[in-house]
């Protein structure tokens, strides 16, 4: 009983402080709204995201239809419901953003902890050279090249590519944090008690770098989400007809005068989504790593 209480206490305190932090609160609220929009909106919408509506969706002179009761945010150039597509785009962005960030945090965390714990050895040298190579490699080109080499890209390949190329910064950060943790007495004590290295890493180092991992992961979601939209904008992301905010912006920019709503929606959502995770992440950093 007492053990559970001791474990819970820091979490409860952190939660209280997070809720009291203005930017974390705003960020958390925005993230929750975004997730709700992504999950619920496509279910409530009477339209298919990839189906054209030639009955109510046509604007004057067969231009994209303006916002109306039938289509709240209008229709795109081939008369698909913009709001439904925005919601599907939110699903894609959140899936790629959160998934890629999780993958990058897993890889970066593992490499950072191992390299930091074995600082100065060959393992550290090899791992950090690897990070050096990765960081001097133009990541956008890498992702685009692999995307071009694969015949068919999907949301999953974009996620894997972004995750596999985005862990380098996390690895450096976690390594630096591990160096601090390793210098503390309880690690020496654990070693003196004869604990195995994996056990020390898992039970004693990992919990102490966990706070770093949590806020880097949150900030990384914003970065990955932006990267996905850039790839889609350049035409190197998830191929059509899948709805993606970056692609919607690219397709909408030709209609900036006839149908400005095609630009406003995805633009607002990209910025709002990145802002939400940035605010949440910054708040977490303030609370967890003062």
């Amino acid at each position, binding site marked *: 009983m007492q053990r559970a209480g001791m474990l819970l206490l820091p979490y409860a305190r952190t939660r209280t402080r997070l809720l009291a932090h203005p930017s974390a609160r705003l960020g958390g609220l925005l993230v929750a709204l975004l997730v709700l929009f992504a999950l619920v909106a496509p279910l409530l919408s009477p339209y298919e995201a990839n189906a054209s509506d030639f009955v109510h969706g046509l604007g004057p002179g067969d231009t994209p239809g303006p916002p109306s009761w039938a289509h709240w945010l209008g229709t795109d150039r081939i008369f698909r419901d913009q709001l439904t597509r925005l919601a599907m785009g939110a699903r894609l962005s959140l899936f790629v953003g959160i998934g890629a960030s999780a993958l990058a945090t897993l890889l970066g965390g593992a490499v950072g902890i191992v390299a930091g714990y074995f600082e100065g050895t060959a393992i550290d040298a090899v791992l950090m050279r690897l990070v050096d*190579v990765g960081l001097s*490699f133009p990541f956008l080109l890498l992702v685009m090249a692999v995307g071009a080499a694969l015949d068919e890209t999907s949301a999953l390949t974009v996620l894997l590519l972004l995750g596999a190329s985005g862990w380098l910064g996390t690895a450096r950060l976690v390594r630096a944090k591990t160096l601090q943790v390793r210098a503390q007495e309880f690690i020496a004590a654990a070693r003196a008690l004869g604990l195995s290295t994996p056990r020390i890493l898992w039970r004693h180092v990992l919990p102490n770098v966990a706070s770093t991992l949590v806020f880097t992961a949150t900030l990384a979601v914003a970065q990955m989400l932006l990267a996905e939209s850039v790839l889609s904008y*350049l035409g190197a992301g998830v191929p059509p007809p899948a709805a993606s905010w970056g692609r919607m912006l690219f397709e909408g920019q030709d209609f900036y005068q006839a149908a400005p709503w095609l630009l406003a929606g995805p633009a607002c959502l990209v910025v709002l989504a990145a802002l939400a995770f*940035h605010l949440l992440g910054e708040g977490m950093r303030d609370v967890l790593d003062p």
Partner: protein
Amino acid sequence: MIRRLVRRLGSALLVLWAVATLTFVIADLLPSDPARMIAGPTARAADVARIRAQIGADRPLAVRYGLYLRHLVHVTEPAAAAAANKTEHADCASFGPLHLDLGHSYTQRKPVVAVLADRAPRSLLLAVGAVTVQLFVGLLAGLLAAFRPRSWLDRTTIAATVVGTSVPTYLIGLTLQYALGHRLHLLPLDGFGRTDGEHLVSLILPALTLGIFGAAYYARLVRDDLLAAMRQDFVRTARAKGASRLRTLLHHALRTTLVPVLTVVGLELGALVGGAVVVETLFRWPGIGALAVSSLLDHDGPLILGITLTTSACIVMSNLVVDAMYVLLDPRMRRAS
């Protein structure tokens, strides 16, 4: 200190080799047939096969990789090069006896080194313009914010930096293009122009786009670092001796802040020279970044390899310069090494 630099140089070469190898494999995986690209879509199969044998595309990957590396940097006496078969050194850029051979671009029908030599100065121009904007706006905003922490000015700056890092570059670019180029007719929408004056005018929009995106990061960095420096003993001493807050900020704290700022400037410059892919594409700026996109879409293997190598070399070199600068700027580093 010399030993440290030599070791860094060695590891830089190692990094470049790894990048070259990785790119070679990726470029090989691209579903394209260089022989068909050279011969054209209407060529007969026999001709395509002949060209394939000529350029060596029918040999195994390992052999082509070996040849690529051997050609990449080779040493030739100028006299021998002139005497040798002309086609052998047609794609080389020569620095005295040292030859750099990145191969021949299928789509541009020129040596890759020649294509890159055309493009690189324009990317450098854009990079310098962008970093100038970033530094100016970033330093100014950071200083203003740090002057009175927790004031409305500080809070606004922080809010602006968070928003600034949340907007993708192409969105900033599109907005500026619309407002300044389309509505107000102040600047050309895109392109590079023909005369020097036109180059400079065309530079403003892309440089401003990259500048705004990066300035948010600088402002935050400068503010946080200045505030950390203001809490240190030497600043408190200066304050105790009667220096005003403004003077300590500009004279004492800003100096220590310049080290991390210059680090970021160096790295940023290196990355930008290698091509700002998105902004160059958006503004049709004919630099390396725009070329990267088209070479990828065209599956032009040698060009892709050349661009990635150039970009990586720029990043690696700026890393080296930043490392050397650290030693110059911070005397403590000299003792440490």
